[in-house]
């Protein structure tokens, strides 16, 4: 037996084994890396889909962007809308959102090899835990307060593209002077630049009164042009505590819109439904949170 031969052969086999082990480890590592890359792409695609849905919903469908939700010192929670937009707004939002949902759940899902489901995807949002539902469509900005007891105050200021000189009639409801009723503060300004007036907009109505949420209360401003601005609060559309701002035949810019509720222990959020995106084994379930305190 040649001892050197056996030794040499053993060393060579050992080296081959080491190389095999190393190459195998390298393969396993790169396979894992490849799997991670694929997962990164899938996750990135899901995040992109999520971002697209939220963008379209927030910027193009709602058209009533909730801003901040703050707790005030007087045991109240205030929700403000710094970008409440104008009235009238888009007429056919419900149809638009239906087409958007069909295209997203159908074609986008199919071509992206993903399963996208939009749940409670409507052109409105809910303030939880109060359950107020806000929507803006056509001539109306509406919010329902199915439980109106936490509602404390609504502040709304409108600037219309008409002149105070052209007002043909106004109507203001009677103050109930009941502290248990919500306060409605309404200011309607004209376009400014009227006869002998400044350019800042003259006040057509300035009112801050308590109104019964179970009665039918209406502010109305009529213009010679046939334009009308109307604010209803109370029992409308078969629900108590309903708030509707209506503008027709003119344009009303909503410059201030704030809603105050009685403070609660839960986190106050503005929610607009939710959606689920599933691709391969990755699932992302997101609520459309439009604002949170």
């Amino acid at each position: 037996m040649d001892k050197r031969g056996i030794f040499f052969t053993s060393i060579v086999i050992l080296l081959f084994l080491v190389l095999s082990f190393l190459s195998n480890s390298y393969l396993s590592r790169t396979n894992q890396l490849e799997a991670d890359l694929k997962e990164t792409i899938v996750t990135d695609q899901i995040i992109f889909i999520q971002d697209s849905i939220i963008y379209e919903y927030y910027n193009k469908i709602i058209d009533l962007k909730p801003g901040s939700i703050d707790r005030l010192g007087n045991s109240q929670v205030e929700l403000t809308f710094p970008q409440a937009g104008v009235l009238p707004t888009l007429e056919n939002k419900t149809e638009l959102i239906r087409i958007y949902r069909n295209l997203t759940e159908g074609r986008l899902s199919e071509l992206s090899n993903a399963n996208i489901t939009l749940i409670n995807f409507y052109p409105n949002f809910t303030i939880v835990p109060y359950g107020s539902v806000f929507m803006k469509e056509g001539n109306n900005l509406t919010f329902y307060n199915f439980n109106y007891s936490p509602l404390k105050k609504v502040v709304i200021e409108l600037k219309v593209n008409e002149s105070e000189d052209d007002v043909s009639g106004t109507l203001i409801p009677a103050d109930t002077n009941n502290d248990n009723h919500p306060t409605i503060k309404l200011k309607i300004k004209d376009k400014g630049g009227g006869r002998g007036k400044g350019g800042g907009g003259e006040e057509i109505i300035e009112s801050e009164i308590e109104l019964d949420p179970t009665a039918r209360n209406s502010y109305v401003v009529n213009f010679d042009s046939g334009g009308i601005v109307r604010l209803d609060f109370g029992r409308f559309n078969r629900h108590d505590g309903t708030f509707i701002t209506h503008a027709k035949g003119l344009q009303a810019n909503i410059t201030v819109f704030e809603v105050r509720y009685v403070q609660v222990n839960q986190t106050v959020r503005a929610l607009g439904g939710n959606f689920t995106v599933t691709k391969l084994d990755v699932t992302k379930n997101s609520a459309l949170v439009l604002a949170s305190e």
Partner: protein
Amino acid sequence: MGKGIIFSLDVMIALLLSVIFSTFIFFNIDQSFSNYDELFLHKTATDTLTVLREDTSLETFSNESIYSFLNSLPEQYCVNLTIYDDNRILYNALKSGCNAEGNVLGLGRRVFIANSTSVYFGEVKLWYG
């Protein structure tokens, strides 16, 4: 003669083992390939849609802005943007200098609302030119 046969057999076994081991090692190394290109091209495709959304050129079908952005992408990239209205191609933009659709590595798709009234389907395809 006897020693020669044993030596040849020894060499043949050694060679066989070497070939088996080498094949195994090279097979492993050959399989060890991570395709980062797909990730980068995919990111570029979705970023393209995001940029065109942010500068509103996608919603307004602004030819000038769309081509300006597509042509500003790295030279080695070819990109094609298609906007569909239902199944009909409503708009198509191909980066200058790119003639045919190659092996698509990056894809970005989104559904978007334009002019507050219409819903469209946008698709960006990226490949190496």
